[in-house]
């Protein structure tokens, strides 16, 4: 390569170290992490609770999502309307959203309103009232979303993939938003009971970054969350094992009124805590992320012109989320694209790194810390991950060593172990 500037090795800007973070476990068990930052006169909060769709009872899919959506629609001292007005009057956002594994919440406000927003956050999390008319509004919105997603090729390819790749009873098998028939009967009692059982401070994490005083934030959250019932321990429901299928599975959904076909091809992947995490993540980068969507982008997009988007993504969370390749192609190129994706997976297994790809991946992961942690939101999200996955506040200091320790053999082994060519699932949503 001609006179490209050389990356500086080893210099990593780290805004998260034990010295820069205040970490405090509140009396009720919730963990608060604060990093003071003067980038903007604002406060950013990212938080997490273990109350996702994994907790949905069988036949009540959509309950976690509906419950979370109601938290900002009525609480002890606020109607839905008055909370909306309060937030809008401060130019602030406060959101709560359920995902498959958990519930994420977020706040963004000016520093001058930090105390008011922390109080509101506490009220919303611990004292929701679930007004029946607001439940109806959110239910219609949810059902409309379900109907829209049935008409959305990307959403349907993903849903069909997950239903086929994960066993019944696994949270990734089921749709997060439920089905019309599971959402229709959900009532106020269901939501209140779900909240009572799963929204508790043990396992809750709140990361706060911004132009704030750490001690004041901790004190305010301690007070705002003080009424939170600790409750008896509720173990998360057991999750059945997920792995490669017994044979290659193909599922197709045909949707009228569409031009393009969408593909999801993959397997159940690996959890964040897996010992394979770093090697598999680097395999994923090489396959379909680095540069212009990795090797997949280089062949299927850049050389063959088959797809505008083709990339791989491994969702490594508390559970083993999907490790899948996604692409949108003309229906006439569907089989050619699938063949090409499989060919690149084979290539990765046979030759995990070539032409400097190992260094590309290592330099990207270590070098990009500065960019990933440039904003308050980026720091808050990292703090949350560090706490959630028990990585330790010195994690970013150890991170370059972890990345540089990964060998080509480990990358190849991870690709072989997970991306099983005799047990993957390919789901397509095509024009009818």
């Amino acid at each position, binding site marked *: 390569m001609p006179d490209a*500037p050389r990356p*500086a090795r080893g*210099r990593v*800007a780290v805004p998260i170290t034990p010295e820069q973070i205040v970490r405090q476990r509140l009396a009720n068990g919730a963990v608060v992490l604060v990093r003071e930052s*003067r*980038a*903007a*006169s*604002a406060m*950013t909060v990212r938080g997490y609770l273990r109350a996702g769709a994994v907790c949905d009872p069988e036949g009540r899919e959509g309950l976690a999502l509906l419950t979370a959506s109601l938290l900002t629609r009525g609480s002890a001292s606020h109607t839905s*309307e008055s909370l*909306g*007005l309060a937030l*809008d*009057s401060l*130019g*602030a*956002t406060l959101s709560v959203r359920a995902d498959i594994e958990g519930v994420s919440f977020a706040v*963004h*406000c*000016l520093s001058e309103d930090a105390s008011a927003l922390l109080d509101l956050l506490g009220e919303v999390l611990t004292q929701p009232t679930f007004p029946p008319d607001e439940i109806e509004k959110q239910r*219609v919105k949810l059902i*409309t979303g379900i*109907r*829209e997603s*049935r*008409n*959305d090729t990307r959403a349907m390819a993903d849903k069909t993939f997950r239903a*086929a790749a994960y066993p019944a009873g696994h949270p990734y098998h089921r749709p997060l938003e439920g089905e019309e028939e599971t959402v229709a009967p959900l009532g106020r009692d269901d939501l209140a009971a779900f909240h009572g059982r799963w929204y508790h401070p043990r396992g809750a994490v709140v990361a706060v970054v911004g132009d704030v005083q750490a001690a004041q934030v901790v004190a305010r959250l301690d007070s705002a969350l003080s009424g939170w019932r600790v409750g008896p321990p509720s173990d998360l429901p057991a999750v059945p094992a997920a792995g490669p299928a017994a044979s290659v599975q193909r599922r197709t*959904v*045909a*949707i*009228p*009124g*569409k*031009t*393009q076909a969408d593909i999801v091809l993959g397997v159940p992947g690996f959890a964040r805590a897996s010992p394979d995490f770093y090697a598999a993540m680097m395999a994923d980068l090489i396959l379909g992320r*680095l*540069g*212009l969507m990795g090797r997949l982008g280089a062949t299927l997009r*850049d*050389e063959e*012109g*088959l*797809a*505008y*988007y083709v990339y791989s993504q491994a969702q490594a969370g508390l559970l083993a989320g999907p490790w899948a390749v996604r692409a*949108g192609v*003309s229906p006439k190129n569907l*089989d050619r694209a*699938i*063949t090409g994706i*499989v060919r690149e997976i084979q290539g990765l297994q046979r030759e995990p790194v070539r032409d400097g790809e190992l260094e*590309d991946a290592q330099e*990207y992961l270590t*070098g*990009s810390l*500065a960019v990933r*942690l440039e904003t308050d939101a980026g720091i808050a999200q990292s703090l949350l991950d560090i706490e959630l996955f028990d990585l330790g506040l010195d994690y970013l200091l150890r991170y370059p060593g972890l990345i540089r320790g990964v060998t080509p053999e480990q990358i190849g082994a991870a690709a072989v172990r997970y991306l099983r060519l005799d047990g993957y699932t390919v789901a397509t949503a095509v024009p*009818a």
Partner: protein
Amino acid sequence: MTPTVRTVLPNGLVVLLREVHTAPVATFWAWYRVGSRNEVPGITGISHWVEHMLFKGTPTLGKGEFPRLVNRHGGTWNGFTWKDFTAYFETLPAEHVDLGIRIESDRMVNTLFEPAEVESERTVIISEREGAENNPEYALYEEVESAAYRVHAYRHAVIGYKSDLWAITRDDLYHHYRAFYAPNNAVVVAVGDFDSADLLTRITDAFGGIPAAAAPPAVRSVEPPQEGERRVVVRRPGGAVPIVQMAFHAPAVTSPDFFPLLLVDGVLSGFKGPGVFGGEGLGVRSSRLYRALVERELAVEAGSACRPARDPTLFEVGATLRPEVAPERVEAAILDELRRVGDEPVGQDELARVRKQARAQWVYAADGVSPQAVLLGSMEIVADAGFLETFWDRLSAVTPEAMREAAARTFSERNRTVGWYFPEPGGSTVSSGDAVEVPHDA
């Protein structure tokens, strides 16, 4: 926000530099005064296609090397095309900002347009268009936009018409590139952890030797006034609920009506921020459209947009209906709200709320070097050099009466285009089948 240093090099290149030392990163951008507004029928979508070609390499850095090099230095990159501009960026650890300078100065003039690469990119872009076509909301928007404008090039989507995408030639692309990619038609922006004087020297070294080109062709067409309501309907399967969209001709960013309309937009659906692409969704739930449509159970979503544009543009309003609600009711409810904001001045509390949202958007936009560079680059092209400096004074000077007048002028029947989308019946079918045969030694 910290001050910006603006320099114009002898070859006409505008350089905007803003030092921000809160994190050890820097972002480098090249902006070109070219977008879909510079396209005529037959070559629609060409600006966006040229943008794709700028990732295909130069004689010194081959295809795929730009993204790879940026990633290898810990950076992120992208490019995008809009009606008024095309932009490219690299956000990097601060010590590597020169990589951005090197890439952008190289591809400003040295991009290869290999015929084989043009052909493989043709189907990539058609795939991008077909992905958008799958979405009924996009299909309706394309109809509304092309009905609202009769003459001006804002009438076609940035992605272009499919027939043009099949027909555009390599030479068309190269000609477009040579006509619009030159220092005198570009703005480079850097925001981040650097010394401005030093960086300006390096930017001058890299770009100063690139000669100015002939002035690019001006956009000639001027949209004539509309003289009565226009309506379009899209019927097709593939959607769940009807959608209603409206578009009203609105002035360019340089008009005195722009700031009043920006606040009117805030009253209708929350204040979006000073830039072309808006900021976080603030102020939605207490906004007038949300209360009239979502709270009253007519729609699941409702919004509006007043984006700064170089030429006279559209003020847009839209709603996704609840199942079983007739579009007539939603249209009437939207028109009631638009009439009200043109009839009665906005009250003090409501205006104070929108102004606070504006202040918050301004502060939030300063977190991160890239959003700041987007504001600087886009407003330099869409508005003028002083736009952001005077933004607050001009926004603060807006009176409720000026808002009322601007709304009344804009939201008239004769200035209105209305679009309805109706989903047609047709169900999905699911099937399973064998996997495709894959040769094991492919």
